[in-house]
């Protein structure tokens, strides 16, 4: 479904992403791990077509991002790391704008999508509130609602549980897991328990390179009895 081959991105003298390759199938939840600055967000931005790679390709459903970015973007739902939406708009206005851009042109179809997204992410109490007045947790959910609004076949989520309280985190994970049945999901995170809880595959990226690409069980088997963060620490020790 999502295939990434030899992606490279350089910022000035720093090579942020250095030949990252992997592929994800339908039904998979891929956990993207790595220290801060390892290149997780940059890779995701290249998959979603926001950044242009210096080399390599990313394809979604057989379509290359470089060839037809608009087609790829319409198949993806993307939750950016820290931008939930236009601050002065209300939740409803914002989601309605997204629905319109996503091709729901009649008022009734737009409303149906907005209601569905609001229902899934429990935004009903704040739907008339402007985004800038929301708490971090609600903002995050607005971003999530925006990403799944058009029921896309693939989701790219950059730190979806960041800023949520423990209860919200559990709820968010359950939601992501429930959607994985017929979707391809890539999510980045710092939280290793999250990987154990929901991911079917783990990629650890360090200094722009993939160092691990396996199932959580295989990762655990590298050092039986050890906690995942110890394994993570050992694998990414070079990236300080």
């Amino acid at each position, binding site marked *: 479904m999502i295939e990434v081959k030899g992606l490279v991105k350089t910022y000035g003298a720093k090579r942020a992403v250095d030949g990252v390759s992997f592929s994800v199938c339908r039904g998979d939840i891929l956990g993207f791990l790595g220290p801060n600055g390892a290149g997780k967000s940059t890779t995701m931005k290249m998959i979603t*077509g926001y950044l242009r790679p210096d080399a390599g390709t990313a394809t979604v459903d057989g379509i290359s991002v470089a060839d037809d970015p*608009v087609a790829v*973007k319409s198949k993806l739902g*993307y939750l*950016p790391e820290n*931008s939930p*939406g236009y601050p*002065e708009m209300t939740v409803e206005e914002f989601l309605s704008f997204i629905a319109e*851009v996503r091709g729901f042109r009649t008022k009734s179809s737009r409303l149906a999508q907005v209601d569905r997204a609001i229902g899934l992410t429990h935004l009903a109490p704040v739907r008339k509130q402007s985004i800038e007045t929301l708490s971090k947790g609600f903002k995050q959910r607005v971003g999530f609602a925006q990403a799944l609004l058009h029921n896309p076949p693939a989701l790219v989520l950059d730190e979806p549980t960041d800023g949520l309280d423990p209860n919200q985190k559990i709820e968010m994970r359950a939601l992501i897991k429930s959607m994985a049945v017929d979707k391809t999901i890539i999510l980045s995170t710092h939280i290793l328990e999250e990987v154990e809880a929901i991911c079917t595959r783990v990629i650890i990226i360090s200094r722009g390179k993939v160092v691990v690409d396996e199932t959580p069980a295989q990762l655990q088997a590298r050092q039986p009895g050890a906690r995942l963060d110890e394994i993570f620490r050992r694998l990414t020790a070079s990236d300080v």
Partner: protein
Amino acid sequence: MRQITPVFKREFLGYFRSPIAYVFLVVFSIAGVGLSFFVGGFFESNQASLDRYFMFYPWLFLFLIPAAGMRLWSEEKRTGTIELLFTLPITTLDAVLGKFLAAWSFLSLAILLSLPMAFTVAYLGHPDWGVIATTYCGAILMAGGYLGLCSLMSSVTKNQVISFVLSVVACLMLLFLGWSVFSNVLNSLFPVWFVDLLSNFSFITHFDAFTKGIIDPKDVMFFVSLMAFTLFLNVVALER
């Protein structure tokens, strides 16, 4: 191209979701009328025409259009919503045109709010409605020219202050080339044909004909090509 509509709607209504629209419209109206009453001698001229009102437009636009245009891209860049916008299924051209047209419509609204001035003149005397109509056309076209420059300057920085200053400087240059005081200075330094050539790039030179009731295709082409050129560079700057 269908994607221009949602971007346009969001941007245009965006002015009214914040105090910007009201502050801008009030300041624009008061400044315009104030200049013509107190500096231009609107009543003393004893003529049933809007010449004394529109003669200040190139100068009024110099500060007010950068104020309206500085946020177009800078704000998206600063708040990070640009990442969201460009991971939606729209092309850069759709986004640039949608935003530009929204801001241009907003400015046109500000210009048309001066119509009571025209009605006042009509009540007091017998103005030439043809001239008034062409002057409004010219003012709206000129606003588009200024705005194209401002939109371009806004796309190169995420700082709105820098965006404003760059826009004012860029507009000032195009304004000065046709200002009689400045061209007199140039005349003493350069041959006449060269000064004429330079003044062909000025807002004032091309706006003047409209205020005399002439719609010259050359003048229309000047403003249209200025808009096309700056918006093209705008797309290039954003895709860079």
